[in-house]
Structures are given as C-alpha cells and as structure tokens.
C-alpha cells in the first residue's frame, strides 16, 4: 500500500465523519427546543390527566429528589406526584406517579419514557394496565407497598395484574414505584406537616 493511498483513505474518512457530525449537530440544534418542549408537554399533560381537578403545580426539590405538589382552583393542596425511573426490560422506564396527600392511595400513573419491546412491553402504556393503578391502596404492612400477580388484581392490598406476555415490564414498573415511594416517603411526610 503506497503512502498516497493511505493519506487519501485518512482524508476521505475524516472528511465524511466531519461532514456527518456537522450535519447532525445542525439537525440537533434545530430540533432540541422542540424535543425539550415535547418532554415538558408530556409531563404537564400527564400531571393534569392524573389530577383532573388540579389547576396548578409546584415543582419541589428535597435532597436531589424532585416531586410535584398539585393544587386545585382554591389553592388547596390535593396530591403529590413524583417521577419514578429505573431499568425496564431493555432500557430505562420513566413513570409519573400521583399519590394522595396521606400517601396511602395511588391516584394514577403515566409512562413518560420507555423502550420496551414494541407490542409487548409497550403495553405498559395501555389504559388497561394504567387503570390497574388507579385507586390502588398502598400496603405498608408488607415488605413492599406494591406487588403484582399474574392472574388477578387486588386493589385494596396493593396488588396489580401483570400484562400477559410482558411480566418483566409490568414487574419493572411495580419495582421502580416501590423503590421511589420508599425513598420519598420520609420527605413527603415532613413536607405535609
């Protein structure tokens, strides 16, 4: 292999990668504001969907833990919401969970981000699965307040029914909510007083 060929190979490959990077950074800078806006919109829509009577929300941070306090039109504090994220079947799942002020009942959850298997794990976003969490009573007498069953749900004791064919994704959602609730509970109790 002669020197000029080697030089040419290097120059061509560097040029291609440079142009690609340039093109990508242009695309990215044109889209980033839209993507950020999308994320914010998804979060706000989810917050108000979970709390239909809410009129505004406050974003609070205690020791790196972010949570939202929802208020109704009379400025009455009606509920908490927090983001619980962690590993799913393939990549991270990000959920938004809303709980009542006493932390005993889940008002509902929404999936903000996920990369589960299309058609199987992605069913964690379906209404039928999300409804499993509506009005779910957290069972603090057990080791974890939430659990799942493959056959039947038991809302009074914190048990949801997992999705057929997507048990791992269902379990992941339950696990990450459990972790977050356990972690956030002491803060929220203090905040409530």
């Amino acid at each position, binding site marked *: 292999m002669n020197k000029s*060929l080697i030089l*040419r*190979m290097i120059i*061509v*490959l560097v040029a*291609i*990668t440079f142009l*690609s990077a340039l*093109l*990508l950074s242009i*695309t*990215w800078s044109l*889209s980033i504001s*839209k*993507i950020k806006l*999308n994320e914010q919109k*998804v979060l706000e829509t989810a917050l108000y969907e979970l709390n239909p009577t809410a009129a505004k929300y406050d974003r609070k941070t205690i020791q790196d833990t972010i949570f939202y306090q929802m208020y109704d039109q009379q400025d009455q504090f009606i509920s908490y919401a927090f983001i619980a994220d962690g590993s799913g079947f*393939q*990549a991270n799942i990000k959920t938004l969970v809303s709980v009542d002020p006493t932390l005993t009942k889940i008002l509902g959850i929404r999936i903000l*981000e*996920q*990369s*589960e*298997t*299309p*058609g*199987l794990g*992605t069913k964690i*976003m379906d209404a039928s699965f999300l409804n499993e969490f509506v009005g779910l009573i957290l069972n603090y007498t057990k080791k974890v307040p939430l659990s799942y069953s493959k056959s039947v749900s038991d809302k009074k004791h914190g048990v949801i029914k997992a999705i*057929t*064919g997507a048990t791992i994704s269902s379990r992941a959602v339950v696990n990450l909510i459990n972790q977050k609730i356990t972690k956030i509970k002491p803060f929220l109790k203090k905040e409530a007083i």
Partner: protein
Amino acid sequence: MSTPVHPTNTQEFLKGLWKENPMLVQLLGLCPVLAVTNSVINGIAMGLATFFVLLSSNIVISLLKNIIPKQIRIAGYIVIIATAVTIADIFLKANFLSISKALGPFIPLIVVNCLILGRAEAFASKNTVVKSFFDALGMGTGFTFGLIVLSSIREILGNGTWLGVPILGEWFQPWLIMILPPGAFLTMGFLIAAMQKIKERKNG
C-alpha cells in the same frame, strides 16, 4: 424494448416492488420486519424511516463512489447510513413523539439493517445517482409495502383492529399469538409461500 443489461429507470424502480422485493424475495432486514409489525402504524413508520435512510444513503454513496477508496468503503458507508438514521431518529423525536416512543430502539437499529448496506454495496457504489435514486425508491416502497401487509394481517388477527380502529366485532377473540414473536414468523412464512405460489403460476 431495452435489454436487461441496461434496465430503464422504471425497471430499476419496479424490481423492488415485486421481483426483487427486499422483504419477501431477498429476505433482507428481517429483524425490524419481524419485531415491529405487531401494529400497522409501527409498520408504516418503520417502512418510511427505512425508506428515507435508503434514499439518502443511496444518493450520497452513489455521488461519492469515485472518491471513497475501496479499502475503506464499508466504514464510509456505515458513517453515512448512521448519519441518515440519526437524523430520522431526531426528526421523529421532535415531530412524532408517540411513534418514536412506540418504535423505541428499532429506529436507531436501522443502521444495521442489511437492506441499506446491501443496496449501498450492491447497487449505489456501482451505478449513477439517478439509477440509485430509482433503486432506493423501488426498494423502499417494496419494503414499506411488505411491512404494511405483514402488520395488517398481524394487527387484525392479533388485536381485532386496523390502524387502531376496531374492525372485527366484539365476538372476535384476538389471537394473541399473532402479535407475539411466533405470529411474525408464521405470517412471514405464509406470505413468502403465497408469493412463490403466485410467481410459479405466472411462470406457468
């Protein structure tokens, strides 16, 4: 009539639709085909994203075919393809968030779809820009068409809906297996068999 040695642009386009359909004849890019076709909207989105990547990579590669030394052509092609895929991914994230979320990792994975690199290596690197454009147009259409057929069968039988609209009544008990991975293989097999049967008849 043109000789087969120099096919016309129309022929370059048409071959991707039927005779050399990338999905049903060449059996290329089957990973996304089998994985995302459990609903029609996913099939369409995947087909169009692949279409865009195929078109842009075929054009760029046929333009650069004399500049890229052949020793590093695969590396060069992959960078070009990956750029197109990332642009498609960012575009979907910014404008069609729900589709982007439904397809998850399968959009970035178009990079390794052997259909794209296959067309780059077998066609765009040896043909003019115009011919490569028509080749990509045909292959992209054929691929998208195949995805729509496959995902329609799977969504109707597996979920009782088409594009999310219920078309089979309450009486219908969805065949869950059709939207699970085995359903993809079964449907794919039947589609290929049907296609071969039609071809056989045509040829007498």
